[in-house]
């Protein structure tokens, strides 16, 4: 039950969506794109989200695309996490995604919603950050394609009226060795304390992390430390811990110190898993 009213639109194609947004803005409204609507509903209920015009993009064919197209795996932003897991085209994504929220909720939460949401874990972005995926976005200026690690700086950097249509991932990066570990405050359910996802491409280990900072990230400096030749695992991990982004979260899920302890162990586990594997 939301305490505010809104109009609801369900555009059938990309242009219509963008045009609607522009038009609504011009008439002084506060339009919002949605796909899964879960954040609209749950944060709207407690006054953390407001809109008076909802543009639901889940009927737009491009946003529902799922499959290989030439050299790329294309995943539409309006796909539910469950749909992505069931298709299982990107094993790391399947693994990371399957730890988000719970099974039923993942039948409603969408890829685009998770990546563009306010709830800052945005765990589904981790595999794409690692695989050098490209983000297809559309807005008043038409379609644009960016490498996601350029576009995703803490959040997906979208201009006014823009939204995420698809993520395209090089086929060669989809089936590489990976590991994804989600550590929680306790046991097996809940938000991440830290989620770490890793891929090995071209002999190098790549790591992306959610839950350590109030945003997910992949860090070149960390990766450089982790992959440094000739150093012991211990030293590589220690070095990585010195180049972390700021701030380290210190909240009810865990203190900053404890998170660093957990991260250290996670990095050890990742190296233990991926060090020996050839890629």
């Amino acid at each position, binding site marked *: 039950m939301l305490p505010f009213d809104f109009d609801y639109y369900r555009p059938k194609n990309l242009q219509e969506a963008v045009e609607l947004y522009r038009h609504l803005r011009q008439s002084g409204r506060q339009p919002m794109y949605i796909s899964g609507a879960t954040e609209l509903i749950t944060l709207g209920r407690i006054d953390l989200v407001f809109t008076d015009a909802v543009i639901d993009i889940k009927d737009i064919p491009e946003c529902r695309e799922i499959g290989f197209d030439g050299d790329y795996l294309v995943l539409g932003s309006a796909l539910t996490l469950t749909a992505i897991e069931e298709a299982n085209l990107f094993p790391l994504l399947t693994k990371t995604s399957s730890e988000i929220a719970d099974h039923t909720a993942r039948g409603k939460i969408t890829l685009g919603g998770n990546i563009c949401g306010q709830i800052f874990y945005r765990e589904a972005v981790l595999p794409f950050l690692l695989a050098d995926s490209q983000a297809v976005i559309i807005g008043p200026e038409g379609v644009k394609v960016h490498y996601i690690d350029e576009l995703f700086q803490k959040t997906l950097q979208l201009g006014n009226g823009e939204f995420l249509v698809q993520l395209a991932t090089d086929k060669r990066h989809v089936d590489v060795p990976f590991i994804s570990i989600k550590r929680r405050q306790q046991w097996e359910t809940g938000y991440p304390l830290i989620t770490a996802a890793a891929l090995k491409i071209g002999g190098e280990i790549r790591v992306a992390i959610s839950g350590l900072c109030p945003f997910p990230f992949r860090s070149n400096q960390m990766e450089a430390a982790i992959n440094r030749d000739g150093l012991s695992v211990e030293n590589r991990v220690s070095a990585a811990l010195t180049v972390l982004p700021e701030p380290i979260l210190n909240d*009810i899920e*865990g203190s900053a110190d*404890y998170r660093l302890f957990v991260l250290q162990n996670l990095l050890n586990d990742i190296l233990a898993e991926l060090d020996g594997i050839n890629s």
Partner: protein
Amino acid sequence: MLKVVGKSVIRKEAYDKVSGRAKYTNDYQSTGMLSGKIVISPYGHAKIVNIDTSRAWKVPGVRAILAGKHYPLTGEAIRDRPPIAVGKVRYHGEPVALVVADTPTQAKTAADLIHVQYELLPVVNSPTQAFQRDAPLVHEHLGEYEKEEDSHPVPGTNIATHIKIRKGNMEQGWAESETVVEASISFSPSDHAAMETRCSTAEITPDGKIIIMTSSQAPFMVKRLISMYFDEDMGKIIVHTPLVGGAYGGKASVHLEVLAYLASKEVGGRPVKVWNTREEDMITSPCHIGLDATVKLGAGRDGKLKAAFIQYLWDGGAYSDKAIDVTRSGAVDCTGPYRIDNVWCDSYCMYTNHPFAAPFRGFSHSELSFAIERTMDLLAQKLNMDPLELRYINAIRPGDTTPTRVKLNSSNLGDLPSCIEKVRELIKWDEGQIQEINERLVRVKGVSCSWKTSTIDTDAPSGAILTFNRDGSINLMSGVVEIGTGTKTILAQILAERLKMDVDKIHVRMEVDTQTTPEHWKTVASRGTYMGGRAVLEAADDVIRQLKEVASCALRAPVEDFEVADSRVFLRDDPSIGLHFKEVGYGYKYPNGNTIGGQIIGRGNFVLRHLTHLDPETGAGKPGPEWTPAAYAVEIEFDRRDCTYRILKACSVVDAGKVMNEKAALGQVMGAMSMGLAFAGRETFYFDELGRVLNTQLRTYRPLRYGENPDYLVGFVERPALDSPYGARGLGEHGLMGMPGALGNALSIAAGVPLNNLPLIPELIWKARRGTHHASL
């Protein structure tokens, strides 16, 4: 040979519950029912400078806004709580205004527009802080409140009550103690988190009838308290309680009902519903009490306990309400189930700026057990003794006395040594407490014990009414609320057993209404079976007597020659001569039409005998009818590197007196264990420095979920309580009570550091280990 009692009879309302037909308070909605929305305090302690409702009034559909007005103070033991805050707020979540509107959306929209200006006050953020001499006062006028006789507030402090236990001679006790251990134990308040959030509706008819529907464990208390608080005629107050979606003590407090009543009154008696969102249910409504405890135990060389000094500082929160009773109950059984001849206990109910407390499954015993059982393990360690053996040799037995000096016998006390022995078998204790798996993993077992009596009002009643249907089936009406414990089905079993009839021919009225259902004091304290059962037995005997009277007349034979069984009343020596219930239940009709008797209506009631108040100086007195003991174990697998763990097995053995319904009893115990493990391992409120609760959603306040549960090992011992129907003792709470202690003990051994705080999350263990590492450097 019992035919119905003890069997896994399917609960009477089972098919309603799997088909969606089962209705709970919020499922009832009448046309014209208005919606109430509470505006809550965002701070723990603050002065209310101004409340501006002008914008809220402009929202269409708004019918009333209650704010800033003085209503009579409420509260069960001390009347310290304004229904809606005036002057200042004392906890995060406290109602500061109540909006009544046509729809929930309008009410919420208007509530959001109420602007309250606050001035922050210093926060009392723990009972230990509250106990300091210079602590800010939560209640400045504590001395002026009306109160019950056995509440002992100390004006000028944050002490809402102080219960003393002075038993034996402490000097002698310490002198006899060769080994002494002391521990400080602490945990914050948490929540019951019943899946059904609380809901109350109220309506006042033009002739003054006050009709309330509420998800409550205590509809009869609602009637009494509304009458008392607002000077209403008791007979005009009718409280309905349909099925309740989980309660665990949290719905024993009377709270939302008062708001619904005030709201309805404000709109000329129109029906108003007040329904808690999850966030409100967690903090606005009463929560699970926290505790800071100090326990000092002394034992002789043989491990026999000689002396105990115990201080409990209960976190009663901003208003004392039921926390006063919890504090008393904690004193009554303060030592845990052990024989200790010299006991000194101070149990204080402290005011803090936290949400106020309701009873929680175990009524102080799950909390105090953690404190006692952790200290017992420290003692075992210091004595270098097997922790299970230490408990066995100290286990309370017939002939011993309780802290309040009740003399125990084999009826009023269950058989703890047998419970311990059974735990020993089930958890395979003799295969070893510690099992190394590899460098990182170790498996460890921890044990604990508990006991409990129910401290209830000395005059608490329970009644039952039986009426016949024309087909010879019987309707059973009892004031016990069906909160999920299946007690109403057990009452039907008791009735079927006594009447020797088919339990399917007994219809149980699930809903309670205080006008036509006989009173059952409150559905708390695992007392439904004992008290409700006794009332049902008396009603059954009443029915048997009436059946025989009618049959005696109809069949021209002495009353004494009749038996009742299989829905018939018949001659003992010739069962072929007799009448079916359908021929007598509505009176007996002779062939010519003459009729004798009429609808048979059986009545029964019950009051516990010989309960007394406690002596205010020594605590001596009889607080409850019988003590149910239990023993527990938990086996965990601990990861030494990560400080994480899994709970592999959890074991509870309860002296149930008599298991009345096997599967239901197992379910009660396993469910309680699951809740106990979640309380021990994960659940707590996180407070910030302003006294705000930071996790008011189930996303961040996390009960156990499917698959996180361990394998359950449940056993029963059956040493009957002679006064209880078929010997049954209470068991609804016991599965929970020992879990925190057993888990804490297992983890403390696994991690190699004493863990005396809850919840036992990996970070806590990591910190404790780091603390000792640093200390040893």
